[in-house]
């Protein structure tokens, strides 16, 4: 029973880690809180499941989910950069529009994949993969994507993307089109989020129009948990932190559920995790200035 839950949590954590890597790209690298994530996660699930049900190869369907998510991200990026809509509102607009689009894509509020071929059922046919196939495939995917992001962020293009989030004025004066960088980053991020959505849907053998609700907050919570516990001293470490954070977040959720809380309470708990994480630096400063008096203020 316990190993069953642990295995399930691990599998889920690793799939969500792909989504969290996407959130990391916008939230930390671009310094952009992108709410389209809630919609693009479902978009990935909807795209993959409806294609699979329609007879498309699941691997191609998963790739299509990535492309669909990328398009959603590009849309958010264009709203923000070309039409000067604030980051939050651009994300909300995309998210809201995607809710209708997802229902169109699925044709109904939910799709079952029971009995259909999925990437996981294919993978389980490989030798020794019957029991741990989902875990191995998820772990392999996360590590591969993490490595690709790691190397990407050290390329000329990757540096320009990071600098856009760090000091936009400076990198523009060095000849980088920061609008393009933001659009690129948002596209890539939402592509990953949708990709994760297609994994989760195929594992659950189910897609639902509301499965993405609260995804951005879960993503932020994972990023913050990972950063606190693993650290962010270098890009490699930060990426590792994000992956660990995603798995840990799922573990926390699993423990909370075991303790007897309802699944419907999860979003409240997740919000609390993020609030505590966002509030604690301010609180720490305040406490330091109370206890340290004048010297504490000087230290700042």
């Amino acid at each position, binding site marked *: 029973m316990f190993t069953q839950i642990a295995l399930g949590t691990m599998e889920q954590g690793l799939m969500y880690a792909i989504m969290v890597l996407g959130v990391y790209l916008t939230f930390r690298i671009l310094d952009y809180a992108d709410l389209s994530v809630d919609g693009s996660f479902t978009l990935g699930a909807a795209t993959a499941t409806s294609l699979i049900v329609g007879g498309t190869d699941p691997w191609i369907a998963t790739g299509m989910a990535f492309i669909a998510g990328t398009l959603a991200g590009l849309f958010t990026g264009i709203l923000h950069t070309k039409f000067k809509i604030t980051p939050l509102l651009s994300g909300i607009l995309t998210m809201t529009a995607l809710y209708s689009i997802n229902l169109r894509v699925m044709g109904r509020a939910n799709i079952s994949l029971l009995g259909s071929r999925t990437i996981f059922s294919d993978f389980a046919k490989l030798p020794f993969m019957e029991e741990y196939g989902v875990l191995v495939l998820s772990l392999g995917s996360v590590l591969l994507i993490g490595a690709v992001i790691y*190397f990407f962020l050290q390329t000329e*293009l990757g540096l320009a993307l990071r600098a856009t989030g760090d*000091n936009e004025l400076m990198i523009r004066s060095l*000849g980088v089109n920061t609008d393009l960088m933001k659009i690129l980053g948002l596209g890539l991020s939402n592509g990953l989020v949708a990709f994760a959505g297609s994994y989760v849907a195929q594992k659950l053998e189910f897609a639902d129009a509301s499965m993405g609700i609260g995804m951005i907050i879960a993503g932020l919570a994972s990023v913050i948990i990972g950063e606190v516990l693993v650290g962010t001293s270098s890009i490699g470490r930060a990426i590792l932190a994000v992956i660990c954070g995603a798995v840990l977040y799922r573990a926390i959720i699993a423990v909370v559920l075991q303790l007897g809380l309802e699944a419907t309470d999860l979003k409240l708990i997740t919000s609390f995790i993020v609030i505590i994480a966002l509030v604690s630096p301010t609180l720490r400063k305040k406490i330091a200035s109370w206890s340290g008096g004048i010297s504490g203020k000087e230290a700042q």
Partner: protein
Amino acid sequence: MLNVHEVLKTFNRGTVNEKIALNKVSLELLPNDFVTVIGSNGAGKSTLLNAIAGNFMVDSGEISIEGIPITRLPAHKRADLISRVFQDPLSGTAASMTIEENLIMAFRRGKGRRLRRAIGPKERDLFRIELEKLGLGLENRLTNKVSLLSGGQRQALTLLMATLQKPKLLLLDEHTAALDPKTAEKVLELTCGVTEQQQLTTLMITHNLDHALTFGNRTIMMHEGRVILDIKGIERNNMTISRLLEMFEKASGSHMNTDRMILA
């Protein structure tokens, strides 16, 4: 070299806060000119630099560099011609990135950014040699994050970044004003060294009237969006700070804001 022709820029047009920041200003720089720019607050000095750098589009007038019209180009497309050092040491570098990452971004100024590993051993060697010239010991700290550096170190690094890839025009916007006097001298010394060595055409805003007369080969004074004084050669060599203030009062009909001016 640089040609600014009757450039007009109005901020908040059509509102009560309407302000003519550049009033048909014209300015021509010869190759290797090192021009210092002085003027009271709101005279349009920084606005002029921002207009040349392309931070906003001007209302009318033309700007060109070596005959290339740049009036309508966005800032990032002028980057291969122009480099800048800002007043705030924080704004010229990316704090969360390492020294070598900042340098490589500057090294590729104005060029396309490709999907290839940015820094190799060859670039590292080059950066070490260049950083050594600053004499700040930064050559051994290539992989340190820039946030660990002091304001002076960051400004010296920004100056190096601005000149690593020789620009046609170097814009310095009071780049030593936020530094302590000793560090400011050091950064100014580095500035002179690099502009001389690379024979850069330079436009430097300063609040230090002494610096304005000792550095460079030409001094312009701005007031209410225009150039009201332009001195070079013997006239400039014979100029003193008190005469400069007198001329300002005569030309503008008002007192220069002396609390922000450094007179000696």
